């Protein structure tokens, strides 16, 4: 009787569960596994030396360097903006709060190509600030500054989105406790707030980093594709591929794919740590009430 009830509770018959699993896993294998494998197969199609040569090519190297540089510049801004926005939203009540939350999501809603175009219209030669920039000989579009700006725009929601729910759940009791104990604002932030949000922050940084390095559309519009100068890794892959340099293209792509795998691993570790921490926070091995 009870055995039957248990089987009922788990629900679906075996064949249906198997079918769902085959569909799910099959889809993953077909659309994620096979392409990923293909990238590495193609990259090594002409053997290891060809792969090494392709990666040590000057233009590929500068593309990698530029990609890393943009990520390094963008991430600190993202951290500051993300923490500030999440702090404001989670711990204060003010007018326009819901507007701010909506605005934070804007970069997710807008197509990256449109973002690129907007920055062209603002900073391009015919753009709003174009003449002024030209008069002062400041080069924004088709140069590093515009690429950093669009990447900032695209990646700014990641950290904030990760932190807002976390900080809302944590409330502001601990911060108030710190203040009442005599802590200054910075002491409160570094000793109480930051340790509480560190894993969420790291998670956001990992996601933002992956996006910053992988961004194509917006960067493509404002970069001008100047080889060795304004070519990031994703743009470089496209150029090489269009020149029928399959080994070069896939070698460069394999670097991006590798980056994705590292991101995935880091993300999993951080997620595991976060879960571990929350489990510790709700641990049930309470010592007995005494005295």
């Amino acid at each position, binding site marked *: 009787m009870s055995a039957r009830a248990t089987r009922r509770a788990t629900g679906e018959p075996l064949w249906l569960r198997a079918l769902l699993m085959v569909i799910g896993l099959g889809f993953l294998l077909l659309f994620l596994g096979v392409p990923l494998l293909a990238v590495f197969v193609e990259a090594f199609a002409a053997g290891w030396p060809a792969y090494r040569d392709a990666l040590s090519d000057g233009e590929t190297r500068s593309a990698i360097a530029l990609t890393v540089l943009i990520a390094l510049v963008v991430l600190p801004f993202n951290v500051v903006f993300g923490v500030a926005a999440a702090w404001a939203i989670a711990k204060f009540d003010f007018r326009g709060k819901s507007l701010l939350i909506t605005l934070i999501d804007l970069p997710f809603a807008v197509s990256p190509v449109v973002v690129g175009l907007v920055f062209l219209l603002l900073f391009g030669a015919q753009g709003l600030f174009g003449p002024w920039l030209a008069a002062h000989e400041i080069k924004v579009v088709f140069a590093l500054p515009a690429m950093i700006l669009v990447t900032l725009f695209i990646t700014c929601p990641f950290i904030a989105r990760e932190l807002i729910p976390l900080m809302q759940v944590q409330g502001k009791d*601990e911060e108030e*406790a710190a203040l*009442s104990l005599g802590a200054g604002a910075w002491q409160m932030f570094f000793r109480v707030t930051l340790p509480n949000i560190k894993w969420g922050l790291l998670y956001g940084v990992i996601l933002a980093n992956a996006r910053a390095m992988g961004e194509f559309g917006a960067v493509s519009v404002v970069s001008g594709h100047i080889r060795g100068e304004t070519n990031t890794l994703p743009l470089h892959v496209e150029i090489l591929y269009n020149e029928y340099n399959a080994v070069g293209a896939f070698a460069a792509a394999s670097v991006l794919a590798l980056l994705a795998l590292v991101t995935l691993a880091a993300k999993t570790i951080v997620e595991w740590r976060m879960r571990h921490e929350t489990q510790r926070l709700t641990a049930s091995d309470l010592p007995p*009430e005494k005295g």
Partner: protein
Amino acid sequence: MSIEIRHIGKRFGDYVALENIDLHIPTGELVALLGPSGCGKTTLLRIIAGMESADCGQVLFAGEEATHLPARERNVGFVFQHYALFRHMTVFENVAFGLRVKPRKMRPAEHEIRRRVDDLLKLVQLDWLADRYPSQLSGGQRQRIALARALAVEPRVLLLDEPFGALDTKVRKELRRWLRRLHDEMHISSVFVTHDQEEALEVADRVVVMNQGKIEQIGSPDEVYSNPASPFVYRFLGNVNVFHSRLHGAWAEVDRDSPSVDAGEAIAFVRPHDIDIERRAVAGGLEAIIQEVQVIGPRVRVELSHDAELIEVELSRERANILSLAKGQQVWIKTRKLHVFSSPLVAMEEEGSGI
């Protein structure tokens, strides 16, 4: 250190949280702010702590202006309802926090910090938990650690926001008594917020009863219980029977000593345990029919009806046994003590009361 509150007012948008509050808390007193939720008691406590700013009025500490002093400079210990322990620090580090964040010049040496934290943990009898994290403690233990943490900075005032609200009854009772002892040992002023009248009456030297942003009454626990200043206080501090004026005439005998109230406009408040039941007619007694007899622990609760009116009476077990009451019996009830308020006052309150 004494606390002086002068004409404090606070609004949240259109909502009036506090209106013209005046309160003096002398040094060494343990004061309870008592009231239903939303009466403004927590807001008042947070204003004293400097975590909320008042729209108008003044806060004075030991006679000195402190209205705009930031929280960190007030030297108050604050204890939160949900403990607010730093979850990523051990119990030891939690208690040491207030000492570690002091400016370098005033910061005690490491061995001094260690000694003081150990002393405090012994004071709250939890020195054996120093290396645990807050999540590994029970609610009662967490709250005691929160207290130790607040006391580490040697505050001049201890403020507690529903400190035992999240705990179960047994632990709560224990901690109450413990808080009372601790307060007496520390020689500081303490203010605690509660909605539990029993807690306020048991622990505090003085009780401040609040309702809808205003103070209804300030007095010793016995005063507010025995001589409530308003119908609200009467109702909030325990059960009460309310008799309208037409019954009043029948009780002329009992109420002869309050001639100031015109019989037509009076409403009488009587606590259930201030009514006695007799099986025989007595002078000034009121005829009633027993509707229900319930035994609740050591007490017996009897529900009676007089015309359409329901009356609740509480007897001791012994008394109930002697009377051997049963449903449907006719009995006579007589009050030992009642309190009369004019009916406009009561009507006014019934319109907007939070209970």
